[in-house]
């Protein structure tokens, strides 16, 4: 019985940790793909520059604003979603390269 309880607690803890989801966004052709992500608090987005040019992840939306820095071809950057709400993502170098992220609590 004691072992069952311990097992159940461990399972529950791992289940909680496993709820965080990772989304992958690529950048080839100077486009974020997918162009929108709907996620939950604690999820992550891994931005992969699979293009031949420098790109980056820049968020100009108030209360969410951030910059992950320049990503050279082949580079990756991961954003942990810590703030609920909707925000826009732009590439500093390519103004038309945009996407939207919605984070639910």
């Amino acid at each position, binding site marked *: 019985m004691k072992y069952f309880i311990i097992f159940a607690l461990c399972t529950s803890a791992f289940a909680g940790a496993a709820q965080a989801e990772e989304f992958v966004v690529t950048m080839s052709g100077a486009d974020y793909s997918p162009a929108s992500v709907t996620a939950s608090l604690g999820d992550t987005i891994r931005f992969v520059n699979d293009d031949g040019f420098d790109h980056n992840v820049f968020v*100009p*939306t*108030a*209360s969410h604003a951030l910059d992950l*820095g320049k990503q050279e071809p082949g580079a990756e950057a991961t954003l942990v979603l810590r703030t609920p709400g909707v925000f*826009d993502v732009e590439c*500093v*170098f*390519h103004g038309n390269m945009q996407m939207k992220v919605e984070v639910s609590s």
Partner: protein
Amino acid sequence: MKRTAIALALSATAGTVVMAGPDEVKLPQDYQKNFVNYLDVDRFDRKRVRRMYVNPEALEAATKGQPLPDGTILIMEDHDAMLGADETLQFDDNGRLIPQDAVGNIFVMEKNAAWSTDNENWDYAWYGADGKPSTSEFAKTMDGCFACHANRTERDYTFTFWKFVEDQSG
């Protein structure tokens, strides 16, 4: 050299010729008190928070839907972010980086109708925490600022300000 053309402007009152050009972008006194801190940008890769300020006259004009007026000043102020004992970034209850009080670099961009630059009427300057102009190679031309801000001509060369105004107006 991005500040190639030196504009001439006639003063309407005195009729004198005013020449504007390099090194004309000053650091406004007491901007932390007199300007509006409209946005903070978490710069994860540099472990910094960048605090954005605008002069109130420009904010008022933009909020009314008018173009940014002559004399608009935007300031970007660097603060190191709070780190934990293991040098990892610390976050507040809203999931945002926590800026330390000390100011680092201060970048200023100013719009002046008497200036003509590669970015129309905008020019840039870099100041240290002591308020003195940076003596770095970058600061001699500010080419990096000109080049990067040129990617936002549709927002009058601003990355965050017009986006902020648009978002506020819904």
